[in-house]
């Protein structure tokens, strides 16, 4: 399918929530979806609103398949019941959570098979106690998350969820390193076979090719840019795809401007992870207001933690990193970039958790 098919299916960028949630006739043919959903953007935005804000959490059972795998850097979970219970848990601690859709970048990868990359800022108050973090702090939070979902006939059949968990912990006064250590200690207890997913993921990153991208897709040069950086160490050539004034946001509140800053973000990781393998796993692109273009890339890295630096002393452990990057292109060049991954789960691996 062409990346800019169905131009009447609009990005949420620049549109008030009232307009986004207006009911009405369909704008896109969606086989097997509830009639309330007007297009795939509406499906993602509206079901998120119904589940998280209207608190109809049981809708997870009709919006996730029973065998849905939700991939996170802390490990996968399977099934609609787990999603339902996890959502109840999250909302019991952060009850006033509002899920602000900064963008939803989607593709139709096969007839009736949709893929959405939903960049969210969740704003909430830390109202409730949490087992690993401790008592409620009543502090406000606002955390970047990207949820990539494969959707068929009203159900999410696979999801890749990345969240800036280090910032989330900072916001409630917790220390990401201390939490990662506690989690790693717990990971080392019991049957280690439960961490087998990580070795499989590392093998996939090392052995599988990049996803095929159609020739006209604006994501092509950006997937190449990430590979040039992480795999070929040609950071300068890679950064030519960025505006000299590009705005860059990475996890743990990394925020800066310019090509050199983006290179700095990559090199922090490249310095820590040696013998790297990079894989571009999925891309999507959609038109934005003002003639801009949005691109989403899900990517993974595998490498050995041999460099001291951003994550402390080298541990010698093999690390796995799952990330999603969103780009805003203007006149063919990136003017804004937002990358999200769970850096607490990276530390957790460094401290010997998750089977590392």
């Amino acid at each position, binding site marked *: 399918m062409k990346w800019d098919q169905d131009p009447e299916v609009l990005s949420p960028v620049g549109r*008030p929530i009232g307009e986004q949630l207006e009911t009405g006739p369909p704008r896109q043919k969606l086989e097997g979806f509830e009639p309330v959903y007007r297009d795939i953007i509406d499906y993602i935005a509206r079901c998120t609103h119904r589940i998280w804000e209207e608190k109809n959490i049981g809708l997870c059972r009709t919006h996730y398949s029973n065998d849905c795998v939700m991939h996170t850097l802390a490990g996968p979970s399977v099934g609609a019941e787990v999603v339902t219970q996890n959502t109840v848990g999250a909302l019991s601690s952060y009850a006033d959570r509002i899920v602000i*859709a900064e963008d939803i970048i989607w593709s139709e990868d096969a007839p009736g098979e949709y893929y959405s990359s939903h960049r969210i*800022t969740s704003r909430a108050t830390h109202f409730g106690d949490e087992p690993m973090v401790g008592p409620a702090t009543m502090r406000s939070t606002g955390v970047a998350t990207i949820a990539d979902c494969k959707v068929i006939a009203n159900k999410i059949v696979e999801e890749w969820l990345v969240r800036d968990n*280090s910032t989330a912990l900072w916001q409630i006064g917790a220390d990401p390193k201390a939490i990662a250590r506690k989690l790693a200690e717990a990971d080392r207890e019991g049957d280690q076979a439960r961490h087998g997913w990580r070795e499989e993921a590392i093998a996939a990153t090392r052995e599988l090719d990049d996803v095929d991208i159609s020739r006209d897709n604006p994501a092509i040069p950006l997937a190449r840019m990430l590979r040039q950086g992480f795999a070929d160490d040609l950071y300068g050539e890679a950064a030519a795809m960025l505006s000299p*004034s590009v705005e860059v946001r990475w996890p743990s*509140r*990394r925020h800066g*401007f310019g090509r050199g800053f983006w290179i*700095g973000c990559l090199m922090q990781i490249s310095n820590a992870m040696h013998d790297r393998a990079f894989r571009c796993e999925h891309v999507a692109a959609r038109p934005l207001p003002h003639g801009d273009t949005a691109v989403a890339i899900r990517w993974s890295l595998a490498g050995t933690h041999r460099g001291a630096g951003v994550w402390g002393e080298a541990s010698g452990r093999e690390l796995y990193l799952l990330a999603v990057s969103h780009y805003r292109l*203007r006149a063919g060049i990136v003017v804004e970039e937002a990358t999200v991954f769970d850096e607490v789960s990276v530390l957790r691996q460094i401290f010997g958790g998750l089977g590392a």
Partner: protein
Amino acid sequence: MSGLANLETLARGNRPENAGLLGTAKLSWSRVDRLSEEDILAVFARHPFDADENALKIETEMGAAIVSDRGALIADLYGGRIGRLWRIGDEREEEREPVLHVAFDTDMDQGRTTSVHFRPEDHPELPPERHEMILGLVQELVDEQRKAGALRVRAFVVRAFGEGRGAAALVSLFSLSSTGQRSANMDYAVVASDTHERKFAVVAKGGSGDWTPRL
């Protein structure tokens, strides 16, 4: 309501009508980002923005600006609605949030010919005849900081637009202190000029914190 009218309403601490401030809006001020309409309204209710009557006001399809000698508001617009907002001036002492800093090279070229990073195509609403004036004002900001003893002062032009009344630009300013023990400073600034050749330059005052390139 126009984008400027929405911005003026918000500046006084009131809620713009008809979702004139989008629910997804983000405000950057005093080194902190505020997310969502409600949080931003609360900021302006507590601390209204004082735009004097001589302030320069500009609106294009994609942006709006209110700039005076005391402060500036710059907004991204979507059909007149505010999607993103920067407030410069009258900074408050906020609790400093932990940050992971990034070692980076501002130039990637010792033979660089400019300290101002600017790509014209990023700013389609800045008329070409205004480029020189805007870039000149940004260069003056850089020169001022250099004269004050700052090192490696660089400007990244983040937003720039103009119309009949004038033009404005939002800039991210980076510098290092020139002392043996260096500190890095990155803050926003706004420059603007009108058709009467009035010039404005406002720089956020924040100061640098500890440098923490580790998690």
